[in-house]
């Protein structure tokens, strides 16, 4: 029944890509609203998160039905399982983006640090590039991109460390920055966590193509990682 299955698998992948694109948009809007202090945009994003969660539930249902009714094996089985796992990661990425939007609504204090905000914007863009790489690779079933994504994540981790140091120093120098500083640390940490989830996508990509279960998250391999 290769043909019926193939058609349904194609739809699963296409819905997965749509969800990934929506989540990428969420990251962009969340970071933008945070940098712009745009509480209204942030609020609309928080409301919109429900639809991403709905997408995830739909994908999960589709994948489970495909497994029960078509009983895929070998490559077909791995494809469905990898989408099942990857959609859970996308949903969690969406949750992190929503947390950034919530932080925009919550944060108080007018003492901001523009150079940190520029760095956060740049980090957000880099993470979205990683996500695009992962989604494209998923569609092309190209596991060679997995290593590249893991490397990009190392750079994300480095930037996270750098921003943390900058913020700590800024707070030491001017206690008035503390309120914004705590918020910067939280948002940067959320972006860093999104990076880790994208590395999970890369791992699922490898599983899909080769059947190997690997750990690409350096922070989980390094003993000093968090």
């Amino acid at each position, binding site marked *: *029944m*290769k*043909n*019926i299955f193939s058609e349904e698998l194609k739809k699963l992948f296409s819905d997965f890509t749509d969800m990934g694109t929506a989540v990428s948009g969420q990251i962009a809007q969340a970071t933008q609203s945070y940098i712009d202090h745009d509480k209204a945009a942030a609020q609309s994003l928080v409301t919109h998160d429900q639809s991403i969660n709905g997408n995830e539930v739909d994908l999960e249902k589709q994948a*489970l*039905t495909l497994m*029960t*009714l*078509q*009983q895929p094996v070998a490559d077909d089985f791995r494809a469905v399982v990898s989408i099942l796992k990857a959609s859970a990661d996308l949903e969690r990425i969406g949750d992190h983006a929503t947390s950034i939007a919530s932080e925009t609504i919550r944060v108080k204090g007018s003492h901001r640090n523009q150079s940190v905000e520029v760095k956060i914007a740049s980090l957000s863009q880099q993470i979205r590039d990683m996500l695009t790489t992962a989604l494209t690779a998923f569609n092309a079933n190209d596991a060679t991109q997995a290593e590249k994504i893991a490397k990009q994540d190392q750079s994300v981790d480095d930037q996270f460390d750098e921003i943390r140091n900058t913020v700590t120093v800024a707070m030491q120098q001017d206690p008035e920055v503390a309120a914004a500083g705590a918020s910067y640390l939280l948002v940067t940490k959320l972006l860093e966590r999104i990076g880790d989830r994208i590395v999970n996508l890369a791992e699922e990509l490898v599983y899909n193509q080769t059947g190997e279960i690997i750990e690409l998250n350096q922070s989980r391999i390094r003993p000093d990682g968090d």
Partner: protein
Amino acid sequence: MQSYNLNETHIVTPDEEIALSTHQLQVFYGSNHSMTDASLSFPRFQITALIGASGSGKSTYLRSLNRMNDRIATVKGEIMYRHTDINSRKVNVFEVRKHIGMVFQKPNPFAKSIYDNITFALKAAGLTNKKVLDDRVESSLKEAALWDEVKDDLHKSALSLSGGQQQRLCIARAIAMQPDILLLDEPASALDPISTAKLEMTLKNLTEKYTIIIVTHNMQQASRISTYTAFFHLGHVIEYDKTETIFQTPQIQATRDYVTGHFG
């Protein structure tokens, strides 16, 4: 075998256009009550699978739908097709079978050419125009996904075809009469996995024009191709619902045990 409460049932009525339905259909072989109160509605242009162990009554039920049991059993209850009870003795059984065709477990082509297999019933029905017959042969074979394999050998004996080809020829023969509904009694049980996959794909494509009801022993086949599934046990319809529900969250213990293989 574990005994189940046969009165505990879960039967839905599909919320879509219904092609055929039965109401309290009962079948008796002599005094043996082999089918009890089967009430099912079959959605149009979909595949419905009838599953159950041997002796569950699924084939008996299927054969009743186009009056194949007339000579061997007593069938009571209603079979509603286009607002008519086709189980009524007043209804012309040959007319019924023009609208409701049947394909059997073992491929049973006539010992004639491929061409003659398809035109046999058409000619019997009075069709003589060669152009019309040729067209019908081509369109039926195309719908049954056999045309490309036999188009240069239409006058070869049908018996020279492989099992899978013969079964698709039998489908082509059935649809040449342009029926509404196709009944299939384990059509793939004598075929290898590749022929089975081809046959299943053919059936799926046929739902563009036909309503299909298929009896199968192969649960994977039921789950792969059907939209609705009915589970039969000891002459009772126990559960009838969307296929994804039957295979993911069946409501009745007997169905759960059967589809998981913990039966008996």
